């Protein structure tokens, strides 16, 4: 699971008011290089909730991202590279995503989150 995906995931358990963001418990993180596309990054930047993204990247062991960002931050190539790395090249292979309200753990195995709910959570 990449952090781009994580920034979109939300706990949809019955009764939960705000299931975003899920807290990451990282047991195994893998890096896989992929070609950078600045236009794509700029589009995704507009969608990303930054606080959740930076917290998630730290949970994955990456601490290079700046706390504060604004549209001008995108002009820096150095930033773009770091953003690209955190967004698309870090993979959570093993671990869990934890619902912020209920503490329910959604397992991540072999890079695949399982977000299916149990009968009583629906």
């Amino acid at each position, binding site marked *: 699971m990449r952090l781009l*995906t994580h920034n*979109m995931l939300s*706990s949809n358990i019955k009764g939960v008011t705000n299931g975003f963001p899920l807290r990451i418990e990282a047991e195994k993180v893998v890096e896989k290089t992929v070609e950078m596309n600045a*236009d*794509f990054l700029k589009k995704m930047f507009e969608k990303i909730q930054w606080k959740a993204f930076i917290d998630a990247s730290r949970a994955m062991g990456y601490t290079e991202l700046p706390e504060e960002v604004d549209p001008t931050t995108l002009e820096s190539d150095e930033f773009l590279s770091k953003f690209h790395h955190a967004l698309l090249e870090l993979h959570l292979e093993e671990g869990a995503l934890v619902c912020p309200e209920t503490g329910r753990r959604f397992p991540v195995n072999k*890079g*695949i989150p399982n977000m*299916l*709910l149990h*009968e009583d959570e629906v």
Partner: protein
Amino acid sequence: MKNMNAEVASSLYTFSSNAEPGSIDSVSGSENSYTSSVSVKSTPEIEKKYVHNVYDAIAPHFSSTRFAKWPKVASFLSSLPAGSLILDAGCGNGKYLGFNRDCFFIGCDISPPLIKICADRGHEVLVADAVNLPYRTDFGDAAMSIAVLHHLSTENRRRKAIEELVRVVKRGGFVLITVWAVEQEDKSLISKWTPLAERYVEEWIGPGSPRARSPSSITLESIPECELSGSGEQLEVSQEHSTEDIQETPDLTNQNQNVLDVEDDKNMNNKQEYFVPWHLPYHRAEISGASAHALATGLATKDDKKGAVVYNRYYHVFREGELERLISGINNAKVVERFYDKSNWCIILEKTL
């Protein structure tokens, strides 16, 4: 914009403890009713048995047959702007993931074996339910649901899945939906399908039910098919606490045999509910291992002549206009294109608000 629909469904029929399968002992008003609250997001038994379990068992074989890209889906994907984030809900073996190289795809499916096939191919995927997408609202640029909604067994679930697709895309985002049509181009294909009514009889009288399976148990030919199918569903349904379709029955005081004769688009007596066979070759069945259990529980049968384990997949095939009707209740999406393509009804929506 999270809808947690608790569907309050009341069954308006009571069953005495020795009610015969296929018959209704008494029809009574709601004061005697068996009432349950079931979320539209709760998976009905028929889908667990005849959709989820089947795809889990046949995943690699199924995947090997799913490679051709439909031109209309391909052109929809190619038309999306570069850098789009595309959400494929019910992505199956990931056939379309990555199709547009300038876009980023995230796929989800309810079948872990199918998702594993996608992941092995390097796609970004997760296991999730199309009726309850674990995605934030307004995030995606486009969404797709290719041959998925026809596996949902109630109108409310089908509508819910469409609402989810609309919810997860941004304002101005597009959604493509394709479903199998009642109006099949190759009519001989339908003859290979089992209409739900007959099959439900076997299901009720099959292993694990109060009655042993025997030919004489099937004494229902005198009961009109519409009631048989409906009552079959009710009895199954009373076990599963899901009575949404019964809730929609209009005339509650009508005690004659046609109480289940609801409006065309909502019930099983309208030739839209089918079991469609899947033949899993023996050598593939052995590899999957799930078939031994399926055969033992009667969910699959053997066809020695074809050397295959035969599974049944549940389908609600769509009539012309049915997709539009489902969408008419959704006030933040409009239809931008509708078409029929190779025995599928297809629709493209745009999220307006």
